[in-house]
């Protein structure tokens, strides 16, 4: 089967700050996502996770290697992908409804229709009645819901998510994770979910890829997560199989986390 998204031998090298020398964020990395698969990529902070995702989105051109989307080489932006950013990416001058409708409006859907569909989506992420709130009037969790609706309304085939819930408190985060799983299982997309949180990665995914610490990070381990679905992210953490998997991934990841930590302290 053709993967929905494939990165082949991708290397990303940046000119180091100050102009002297180079910094290799990602080194010779190949990752493929099957249609309908939920893939998580975990790695220590400061490794090239976000860089990989930007390459997959077409926002960043790799120094070497190639990206194919459903077998077709990617040039320019990845139009089949939706991207959920780690930082707040909502337009502060549009209210919640305007933000969700933005994608449709950009694609030439009539304003009235776009707003009507946006209203449905806001309800689907649990924000009915918050239409006219501006981002600064919403809580962090609500803003993430708006961002989720903003991405999903365009019905992308591939979801690229860059630590989308890392800024949320634990309770809100588990709620959002469950909601994401529910939305995803209703309409199976390929997901590339970036996180530094191993528990989150295992609870959500079909497959987890562990990355080494930067610079020049690359995959160092791959784990199929054979936990049954549907899952509840809070309950699944108690399952014996979950604990086994967690231990297996952590064994691979631990040294890299320590390495990454040591580098950041330098």
């Amino acid at each position, binding site marked *: 089967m053709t993967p929905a998204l494939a990165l082949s031998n991708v290397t990303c090298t940046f000119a180091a700050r100050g102009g002297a020398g180079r910094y290799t964020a990602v080194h010779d990395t190949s990752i493929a996502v099957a249609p309908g698969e939920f893939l998580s990529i975990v790695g220590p902070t400061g490794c090239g996770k976000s860089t990989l995702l930007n390459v997959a*989105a077409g*926002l960043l051109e790799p120094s070497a290697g190639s990206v194919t989307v459903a077998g077709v080489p990617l040039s320019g*932006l990845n*139009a089949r*992908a*939706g*991207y959920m*950013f780690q*930082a*707040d*990416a*909502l*337009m*502060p*001058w*549009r*209210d919640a409804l305007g933000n969700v409708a*933005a*994608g449709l409006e*950009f*694609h030439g859907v009539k304003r009235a229709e776009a707003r009507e569909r946006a209203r449905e989506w806001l309800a689907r992420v649990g924000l009915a009645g918050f239409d006219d709130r*501006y*981002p*600064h*009037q919403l809580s962090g969790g609500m803003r993430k819901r708006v961002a989720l609706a*903003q*991405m999903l309304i*365009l019905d992308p085939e591939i979801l690229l998510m860059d630590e989308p819930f890392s800024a949320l408190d634990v309770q809100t985060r588990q709620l959002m994770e469950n909601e994401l799983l529910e939305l995803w299982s209703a309409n199976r997309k390929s997901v590339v979910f970036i996180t530094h949180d191993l528990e989150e990665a295992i609870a959500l995914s079909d497959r987890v890829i562990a990355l080494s610490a930067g610079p020049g990070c690359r995959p160092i381990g791959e784990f199929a997560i054979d936990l049954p679905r549907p899952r509840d992210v809070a309950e699944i953490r108690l399952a014996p199989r979950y604990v086994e998997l967690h231990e297996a991934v952590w064994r691979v990841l631990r040294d890299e986390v320590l390495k990454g930590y040591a580098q950041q302290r330098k």
Partner: protein
Amino acid sequence: MARELKVGRGRLVLYQALLASAFFVAWWALTETKVLAPFFFGEPLKVVKVIWEWFSGGKIYPHLAITLWETVLAFAFGSLLGLIVGLWLALSPLASALADPYIKALNAMPRVILAPIFAVWFGLGVLSKVALGVTLVFFIVFFNVYQGVKEVSPVVLANARMLGASRRQLLRQIYLPSATAWVFSSLHTSVGMAFVGAVVGEYLGSAKGVGYLILQAEGTFDINTVFAGILVLTAFALLLDFAVTRIETRLLKWRPGQAETERL
């Protein structure tokens, strides 16, 4: 740390009025007792009388109308030009690099000096004052738009691109609103500058306007009328500023203000 204001809104206005009254009483007392020479410092009662006669007799209205018209025109054209050029230079690195030294030079130049040249080019009518006002307003708006576009959040921009925004849509939906916020923060300054352009232009050569009235009074050493002109101008500058604040709060309601709580 700023200390919290403990007086209510109404009381504050009262105190502000008292402060103004105290100033006028002091002015009156000092000139009445000849501590300050009335010839140089004017007499507040006569100043008020001049203002009263201006407004009751209707002599001021055509002059005021001209000055305000010049201000509005200078403000509108200066802002529009600043917005267009600001957007253009901010989005085109080549044009920006090319224009950079000239923009800096023009901004550093004391532009009031241009007034006589504008008078030669555009005559003594409204146009030469508008031209002077435009040169003053343009740079304020230009720099703010430029800054506003440069400081568009890269994440918001990337998000809009991923949502499928074309270059045109990015300009309209991302750059423009982002720049507008900056423009509005500069609006108070630029309205003031448009006013300065109009009055200075009139002062340097005209046949109408409040600046012209002040110039005439100065010619006859009528210091009271000069002060009256200054007071009228100040009052209208305050009024313009108030109008800008109203428009600003309406257009920028998306901007986070102080913590908002609703009273139940």
